[in-house]
């Protein structure tokens, strides 16, 4: 079981992802925006973050800068699961992977729940 912070702006999708992750016995905190995500991280102490880059007001990248600025969260694995196709941020992939420590990228429209769960299992630091 891992504590997962799911940063997903769409309320309906968030509910579906949460259900699937909880069914796989993970503990899930949901935030719909960047600011709420920082507060949720503070209380949920996540082992893994699943992040959409397209958020309202502050982007997922802004969230990552803030998130990584705290020592406690510098090593927390982050999975970007986004509506933005990978080709569109080719130029910033190095930034995401290197400086901001993104471990995996999933293109949301083509990622099934099973694939998401598999990515979480692969990066879960708490092996059961």
């Amino acid at each position, binding site marked *: 079981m891992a504590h997962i912070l799911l940063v997903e*702006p*769409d*309320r*309906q*999708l968030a509910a*579906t*992802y949460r*259900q*699937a992750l909880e*069914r796989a016995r993970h503990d899930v905190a949901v935030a*719909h*925006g960047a*600011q*709420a995500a920082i507060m949720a991280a503070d209380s949920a102490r996540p082992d893994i973050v699943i992040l*959409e880059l*397209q*958020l*309202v*007001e502050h982007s997922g990248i802004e969230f990552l800068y803030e998130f990584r600025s705290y020592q406690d969260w510098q090593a927390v694995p982050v999975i970007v699961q986004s*509506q*933005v196709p990978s080709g*569109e941020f080719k130029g910033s992939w190095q930034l995401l992977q290197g400086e901001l420590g993104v471990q995996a990228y999933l293109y*949301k*429209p083509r990622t*099934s*729940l*099973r694939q998401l769960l598999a990515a979480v299992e692969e990066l879960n630091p708490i092996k059961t």
Partner: protein
Amino acid sequence: MWREKERTGTSPALSQQLLLSIAEELKLPLLQIARQAEQASLDGPADLMAIRTTADSALQLLDSYVLGVRLSLERAQLDIESVSVSSVLYDAGQQLDALARNYGVALELNVAGRFGPVLAHRQGLQAALVSLGAALIEALPAQESAQLKLQLATHRSRYGIVAGLYADTRQLSNEALRRGRRLQRHSRQPLLNLTHTSGAGIFVADTILQAMALRLRTSRHHRLYGLGTVLQPSRQIQLV
């Protein structure tokens, strides 16, 4: 290109951009349906009402887009009539009710005060309000608003009768709308402060209103911020 602009009211590039926004926007309901179906296959029965509402809302967006294009093409012979704003808002509220429930948004109708009829294309006005409402319903939770409430309301201003949708969110500003229109061609998220999607519902409403020689604009209703349009009162004698 100039001829095309004159005929449809929008430039070809802008029409293509609107189509692109809609294609991006429609990924969301399809994704919701696909994942809900997958979740149901793993974990028991699906919430069929939610799936139906999602599909209906996507179809509504497509219908509104088609209506917007049709009205733009028929601009010279639009069927403008005397319309009761309250009844259009009521009908729009009915159409948005299920989607609002899906998103946990409380929908309220505020038509206090008696306003006479206005001049409008009834179907167009309703489609614009529904399109706008659906976009705002989806956007509100992502804005981290303290209150998930959306009000369909009308009031009198010095320019005419204003009909629109209002929420307790400062993100609904003139600047956000202006920047969104400017970025529509260049960004996958032009209304950055308002919605995490392409904002197609808002641009479709904009297109429909333009076809009716109206404008989508920001406005205030009591302490709420919103988007709506100004309608001109009909001089037709009211018999009731």
